[in-house]
């Protein structure tokens, strides 16, 4: 069978062997839970609780009037002890609700146990009898956002513009970032929830086809999902070539459907909705159990970590507690990253809370991979071959150094998604992404 893929891309060492066979274990929530009001793209939430309030596990504690936003919920039961600005893993600070955990995990009364019989006939009935609007409302109330890292509110994707009907739902199981295995474990351990979630997403947008797209470095996940989805004729498994950035939204759409999202456009413009696999399983839990997004799979890995692990983690626990649960550090880490090593965000402190978009936290000890100096371009063209958007990163980086706004526009700098393939491949170790980030700011402000 021919593997689906896109043009360009790179082949970093995936380093997934550290954790891909490590089953997910629950991480015990800590005594103090810090819930940021900003855990998604869009408007931050405002707290709907006050200091001194008792809150239950799964109770909404922050919300916003804005359409592009998602409410946040308490991940434990306990008492609100503070509302203050606190360091945020995405950079800067965010208003946070601090909860003293009572360790009872008393559930909010709306949340029901999983009561759906999982025979395929029953699942089909359940999906057939639920209204699209009910799915969208429950997804919004559950605060579900894209869990692949970008954290875009899912209910916004589920209400596409009227003139752009969605025909294909792609579940993104590519997990192309090295080290991360949280989605891989989700596919192995909760395949049925993922399939149910995908059926609900398809129902919500009225699509006709579901493709669960997985890179071929995860043959076990492909097999499990093929078996679980065999009773649902509208679900197919798309096998992708292992290549970075295969899991990028535009690239996975191109690989699976052959379509290309227009420059500056959204996937709905070509009739596609892309959602992460773990997000789909959260949709299933939100619709069946009314369970909001308060816990997720997180990979804890990197060469400085004693026991690289996959944890089921409540939002609001600190990165420090995750590394502690993974046996601490075997060498002193020089760099801590939220997300994968290609696009992840470096941290200045371990005392930042886990938010909905955290797929992994990595700790590295090796300073030479970080590079302090860059050379001049030798025009080898490796970045031109690697760019998945088919841009010319070499030219863009030089125009950026000269602040040449006209040329930057002409060479479409704003189409860059900062995947880092050019920086990765550059033999002169040029800081391509930094130059391009600067260039984008120049063009936007011009």
């Amino acid at each position: 069978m021919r593997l689906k893929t896109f043009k360009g891309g790179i082949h970093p060492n995936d380093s997934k062997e550290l954790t891909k066979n490590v089953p997910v274990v629950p991480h015990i929530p800590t005594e103090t839970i810090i819930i940021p009001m900003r855990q998604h793209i869009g408007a931050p939430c405002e707290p709907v609780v006050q200091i001194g309030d008792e809150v239950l596990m799964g109770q909404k504690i922050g919300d916003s009037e804005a359409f592009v936003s998602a409410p946040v919920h308490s991940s434990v039961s306990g008492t609100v002890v503070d509302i203050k600005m606190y360091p945020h893993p995405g950079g800067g600070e965010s208003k946070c609700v601090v909860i003293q955990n009572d360790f009872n995990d008393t559930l909010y009364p709306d949340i029901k146990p999983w009561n759906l019989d999982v025979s395929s006939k029953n699942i089909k009935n359940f999906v057939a009898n639920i209204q699209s609007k009910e799915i969208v409302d429950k997804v919004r109330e559950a605060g579900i956002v894209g869990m692949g890292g970008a954290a875009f509110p899912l209910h916004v994707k589920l209400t596409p513009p009227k003139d752009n009907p969605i025909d294909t739902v792609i579940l993104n199981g590519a997990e192309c970032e090295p080290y991360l295995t949280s989605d891989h474990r989700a596919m192995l351990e909760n395949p049925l929830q993922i399939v149910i979630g995908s059926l609900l997403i398809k129902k919500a947008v009225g699509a006709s086809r579901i493709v669960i797209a997985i890179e071929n470095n995860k043959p076990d996940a492909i097999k499990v999902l093929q078996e679980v989805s065999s009773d649902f004729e509208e679900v197919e498994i798309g096998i992708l070539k292992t290549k970075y950035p295969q899991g990028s939204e535009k690239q996975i759409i191109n690989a699976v459907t052959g379509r290309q999202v227009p420059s500056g456009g959204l996937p709905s413009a070509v009739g596609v909705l892309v959602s992460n696999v773990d997000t789909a399983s959260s949709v299933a839990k939100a619709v069946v159990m009314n369970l909001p997004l308060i816990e997720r799979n997180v990979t804890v890995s990197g060469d400085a970590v004693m026991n690289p692990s996959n944890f089921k983690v409540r939002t609001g626990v600190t990165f420090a507690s995750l590394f502690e649960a993974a046996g601490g550090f075997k060498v002193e880490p020089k760099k801590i990253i939220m997300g994968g090593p290609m696009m992840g965000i470096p941290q200045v402190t371990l005392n930042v809370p886990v938010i909905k978009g955290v797929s992994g936290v990595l700790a590295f000890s090796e300073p030479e991979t970080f590079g302090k100096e860059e050379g001049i371009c030798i025009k080898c063209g490796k970045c031109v071959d690697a760019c998945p958007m088919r841009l010319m990163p070499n030219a863009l980086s030089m125009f950026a150094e000269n602040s040449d706004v006209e040329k930057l526009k002409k060479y479409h700098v704003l189409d860059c998604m900062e995947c880092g393939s050019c920086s990765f491949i550059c033999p002169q170790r040029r800081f391509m992404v930094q130059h391009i980030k600067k260039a984008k700011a120049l063009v936007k402000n011009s």
Partner: protein
Amino acid sequence: MSNLIVSYAPHIRSAKSTKQLMADVIIALIPALVASVYFFGLPALVHTVVCVLSCVFFEWIWERAFKLPSTIGDLSAIITGILVAFNMPVSAPYWLGITGSAFAIIVVKMFFGGLGSNFVNPALAGRAFMLLCWPVLMTKWTVPDFTMSFVTDAVSTATPLGVLAESGQMPYSYLSLFLGNIGGCIGEVSALAILIGFVYLLIRKVITWRIPVIYVLTVFVLTEILGGDGLYYILSGGLMLGAVFMATDYVTSPMSATGHIIYAVGLGVLTVVIRMFGSLPEGVSYSILLMNIVTPLIDTYTKNRIYGKPKTGGKSHE
């Protein structure tokens, strides 16, 4: 833990730095060096060492004189040195290699800003310079000498292409041409040794197959069409050395796949035209120098079609 490093993503880099790529090219040149010593004796090795040391020295002294950061660590000057030597006849005096190296490094490479900013291949420009200034010294060929003596005492001869241009005869067998038992420049005689280096470069993914293969194929096909002996043409002269090691120079060759094809076909056409219709027996160096100059133009017209942009041929950046 107080000193966490914060820098932009990506946080990992490919293992292949410029230095490692250049080291691979040097390794790929070793078979041709061994062949040259086998056929021409120790002077071939001495020439190579002299040129390498000169190139590294000139780059170092230039950067020192102008208080620039030293770049000799990227190993590119070593490759230039090897290639300058490979483009000389073994009978040439050693001072000629030093002069050629000085021109290649100082005038062609450092005047324009060093590696990455030169617009033609330094080694080839060095060869063209030597050929223009000392044409007699640069075209005094000897037949290979098997005695491994330090002093070359072999009789003068002509190159396969020289003979062909003069008299229309082809005195060498294909096997001799392939193995390298022929007259010619130090590094160009053995097609076999160069092909071993080519395979190594392909395996190490330093270069792609496109430029060398398309260049050689174009020469073969065009020669056959024009009534020549294609196989004889591709195995003789500097074609193999030029196609594998000089036409593929990152700095002076196009970047995209389409650009590679245009560039390689252009090289083939120019080489055959010079060889068959020009007054020179050999045309590889001038072809590559000319196509080096055209490279920025090729790059301008062969950009990739950007993701998400309508199909408009090569004008996607306009």
